[in-house]
């Protein structure tokens, strides 16, 4: 599964995207963030306050409780500040 990071989430993780094998038992966006936070210091820093992180599955906004399902691309980013 492809993960993409934007803005300060990208800066903290230290990369814009990566391919990961998500372990069994990680079923929702929220669980994916918890698992990512356990992957090292930079991830722990990026995901230390998951409440402020927004997510999209295949370029559509989703909530933490949304199941990952058969997503091909999941993105994590801070609240948006365009306009």
């Amino acid at each position, binding site marked *: 599964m492809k993960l993409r990071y*934007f*803005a300060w989430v990208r800066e903290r993780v230290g990369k814009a995207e990566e391919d990961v094998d998500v372990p069994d038992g990680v079923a929702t966006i929220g669980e994916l963030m918890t698992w990512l936070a356990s992957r090292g210091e930079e991830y722990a820093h990026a995901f230390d306050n998951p409440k402020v992180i927004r997510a999209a599955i295949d370029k559509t*906004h989703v909530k933490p409780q949304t199941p990952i399902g058969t997503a091909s691309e999941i*993105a994590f*980013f*801070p609240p*948006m*500040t*365009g*306009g």
Partner: protein
Amino acid sequence: MRYIPRMTTTVRIQSEPFDAAAEAKKLSGGRTDVGALVTFTGICRGNEGSEPIVALTLEHYPGMAEAEIERHVAEAVARWPLIGVTVIHRHGRIQPGEDIMMVATASSHRQAAFAAAEFLMDYLKTRAPFWKQVEKADGTTWVDAKATDDAAAERWAAPGRKHAAAE
């Protein structure tokens, strides 16, 4: 028979500058059913509070930005009697005084044009995947999202809210 206008919608994400006036004019030019044209232009300011800004850099999520804006344009078209909508949003480095983005809405009636432009702006601020980084003399920081922008976007979803759809 109800008059069904020819509808023009344009959504563009680009790093190049754009000409807001010329883009707006395209919505009303060559036709005589537009009675009201509203244009919003968001411009890079030269300061934040009392601190000078060197530049803004806008990061975006390619593909999702277009899709998200197009979805909201379609919703605006469904909610108000519009004849045309244009949304252009830049990404990359933008200097003070330069235009960042624009929304233009054309309708037979002013209230529809105003409501749709405000709706699109409120959603762009809170739902379109863009992130602003502000560059000052002492470094760069990410702009924080504003709670007032979330509140502005929510008023369009409040149950029972009435829209002025026509004059």
